[in-house]
């Protein structure tokens, strides 16, 4: 199962993890990641995206992970729209026979979707709102998977 979803609604991490292994006997490991809106200076953010390209790019990244590691399934869910502090933004969950593949593919998926999926964050602060600048650290995190 390779599944990517782009949606306004929230998702249920536990249910998605469970779907990756329920009724199967070949999954020994499910690694997952949940990204959340962090507070501090901001009160909320709005995620804009490019409908159509977003799904394609997430699918490309998911296919790349499935080609690179022996996986039994993976789910990527990314939200768009306005999200308050504390809300879930993104889920990546990866099932495999063994833990190393699950962990590595999960980290790879997060690193790559950060640079490959067309989303843009606009943060609301006390002083107004502003577009988030891309981080060099995210490019570096994605690039590390090319070196090996």
């Amino acid at each position: 199962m390779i599944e990517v979803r782009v949606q306004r609604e929230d998702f249920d991490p536990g249910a998605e993890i469970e779907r990756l292994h329920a009724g199967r006997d070949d999954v020994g490991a499910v690694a997952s990641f949940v990204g959340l809106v962090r507070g501090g200076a901001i009160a909320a953010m709005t995620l804009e995206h490019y409908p159509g390209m977003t799904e394609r790019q997430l699918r490309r990244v998911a296919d790349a992970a499935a080609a690179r590691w022996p996986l039994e399934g993976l789910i990527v869910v990314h939200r768009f729209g306005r999200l308050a502090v504390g809300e879930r933004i993104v889920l990546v969950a990866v099932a495999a026979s063994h833990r190393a593949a699950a962990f590595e593919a999960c980290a790879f998926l997060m690193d790559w979707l950060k640079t490959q999926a067309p989303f843009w964050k606009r943060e609301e602060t006390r002083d107004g709102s502003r577009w988030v600048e891309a981080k060099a650290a995210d490019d570096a995190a994605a690039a590390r998977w090319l070196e090996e």
Partner: protein
Amino acid sequence: MIELLYFAWVRERIGRDGERLALPDGVGTAAQLLDWLERRGPHYAAALAERDRLRIAVNQAFAPLDAPVKPGDEVAIFPPVTGG
């Protein structure tokens, strides 16, 4: 005709989220398209001035500035992505 799409602050500065237009004469690459758009007025100029802060997608795949564009293409212009 080509389909142009603008996102994030590119969209805001241009003041619209996209437009359809006939591919202008002499425009055969994304870079030439940006040059042509920039001359359409101050909103376009403000959105497209800093080329190293722009990214391009042609038909929903990232493309370099020298990528060819042809009638029927969907060309999107936007800042570096910041999802996840």
